[in-house]
């Protein structure tokens, strides 16, 4: 990829990152009203807690200073502290491994199953295989994650008793059902997107030309069709991975996994504002960097992107 593009793209991270942090920070501290009350969910707080909070977030100073101090803290890995004085970063460190394992599990399913489905249904288009994949994936997309989670829990956990339905005590087995819950839906959408993408590319003139040169079919599909189809697929995969890193909120709730997502919901339910803000901030930052990686990957795959 051209150096110009690389540098431009890397430089872009700075304003976007700052903007994102500002957006999230602004939602809490810039909006009219008392930020502390908002964070506390209008629950009463003791004066000493309020004092600690005010000091920590520099609420007695102009917004610019508040933001600046927040940035400084962030760069040291300080994501704020809850009302009880606990560091959010500590909570993050504690819960991240669970979310990470779930993310890997779900992503693995999405990647392998999704790509397989899209290639098979594209290559076998108009056959019964293609039709069944289309119907199957449609099901998986439309059924909301919550429902899938419950159904899997019920069938495999309770009725059949094969897999655990909650918690992480059973080692890797605990992650099977949750990974499937999210992974199947994601695989389904990759399957459909990939299929239409591949089909579009299969009718391209350069594919016809490749066939006209007598290249083996496997090569034409595996090399030419595939690489041309990758950009949108990689984009979606990347975004999904970022989303997964943020903790699949619903799934972690259903299966009672002590990850970041569950932490977020608990924070919401207990009006633990600082925790919620800290976590959302983390996810947004992860997102910015994931988008960067995705963009760079796509530029590597399709030279037209970077050479403009």
């Amino acid at each position, binding site marked *: 990829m051209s150096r110009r593009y690389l540098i431009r793209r890397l430089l872009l991270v700075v304003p976007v990152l700052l903007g994102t942090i500002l957006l999230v920070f602004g939602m809490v501290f810039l909006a009219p009203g008392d930020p502390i009350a908002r964070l506390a969910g209008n629950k009463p707080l003791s004066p000493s807690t309020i004092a600690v909070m005010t000091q920590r977030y520099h609420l007695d100073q102009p917004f610019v200073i508040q933001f600046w101090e927040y940035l400084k803290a962030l760069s040291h890995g300080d994501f704020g502290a809850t009302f009880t004085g606990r560091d959010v970063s500590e909570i993050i460190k504690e819960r991240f491994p669970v979310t990470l394992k779930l993310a890997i599990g779900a992503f693995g399913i999405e990647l392998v199953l999704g790509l397989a489905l899209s290639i098979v249904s594209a290559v076998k288009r108009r056959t019964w295989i293609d039709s069944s994949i289309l119907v199957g994936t449609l099901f998986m997309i439309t059924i909301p994650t919550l429902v899938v989670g419950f159904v899997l829990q019920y069938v495999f956990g309770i009725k059949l008793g094969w897999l655990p339905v909650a918690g992480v005590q059973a080692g890797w087995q605990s992650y099977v059902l949750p990974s499937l819950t999210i992974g199947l839906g994601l695989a389904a959408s990759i399957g459909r997107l990939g299929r239409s993408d591949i089909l579009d590319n299969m*009718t*391209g*003139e*350069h594919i*016809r*030309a*490749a*066939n*006209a*040169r*007598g*290249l*083996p*079919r496997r*090569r034409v599909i595996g*090399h*030419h069709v595939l*690489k*041309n189809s990758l950009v949108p697929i990689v984009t979606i995969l990347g975004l999904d991975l970022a989303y997964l890193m943020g903790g699949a909120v619903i799934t972690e709730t259903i299966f009672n996994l002590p990850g970041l997502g569950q932490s977020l919901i608990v924070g919401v339910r207990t009006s633990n504002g600082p925790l919620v803000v800290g976590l959302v901030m983390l996810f947004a930052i992860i997102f910015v960097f994931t988008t960067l990686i995705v963009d760079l990957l796509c530029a590597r*795959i*399709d*030279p*037209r992107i970077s*050479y403009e």
Partner: protein
Amino acid sequence: MPEPLFTVENLQVEFRTDDGVVHAVDGVSYTLEKSEVLAVLGESGSGKTVHARAAMRILDTPPAFITGGSVRLGDMELLTLDEEDMREVRGSQVAMLFQDPHTALDPVYTVGEQLIELLKARRRVSKREATEVATALLGRVGIPTPRERLKAYPHQLSGGIAQRVMVAMAVALEPAVLLADEPTSSLDVTVQAQVLELLGSLVAETQMAMVLITHNLAVAVGLADRIAVMYAGRIVELGPAREIYSDPKHPYTAALLRSIPDIQIREERLPAIKGAPPNLLRPPTGCAFHPRCPLADDRCKAEVPPEVEVRPGRWSACFHADEVTR
């Protein structure tokens, strides 16, 4: 008498669409010998591109279906070959050159990668050998600094250079027949001449036979030995290039010739062929050209004129062939 190098006989291709059946190619026949250039001249929709793709069997089926006729290389029938065997034929015996190099080349691989891929897959050479051959090929088609060009991506190349790359790929396996589908239509006029010259020299050098598909009469006359004029899926006139140019024997050909503006004559309006190309879903009865033809009579409306040898080596599908003037 030995079989001609390349024979197309009564080729029939139809497109089955939701709105009906279109006979895109309706009985096309011609033969080709070594070193011969046959120009297939026609408007869009005349079937010229479809017939070539049918010969190479790279049509999208559905909606296209080859419903009749024969395409032979020597005495080998191509239309009934196994797909595996046909793949062997493609590129190494019969090759195709496409119109727009920027859509016909894969945009995500370098030019070198695509050339080398072809050589390695079809000629079983090592990467290093393939690179040498590829460099030589690019040089042969007139691309300066070929070794550096191998690393370029298609969109980085100008139209002329990119088309030369396509020519290189088409002749890389030394095919006996080249089907060139409007190879210069997407190029600037000055570059067109260069590419045509290149094709001409390749034909002379390798004794390759070439079918030059074009809508541009000047291109046809410049390079071809013979011209086949196509209209609505059929060949309406076939003969030596010079003769067709000076003495057409079909009203359509004559109208085409008349529509070329003459720089020396001052005109108020550009002469065009009146009417519009036929709707192939509901083609006219009888001769497809009759609605636009000044010589048309009732017989033309009722009967389809057969191809008749009106002079030795001159074929015309018109009841009034002898009345045609330039």
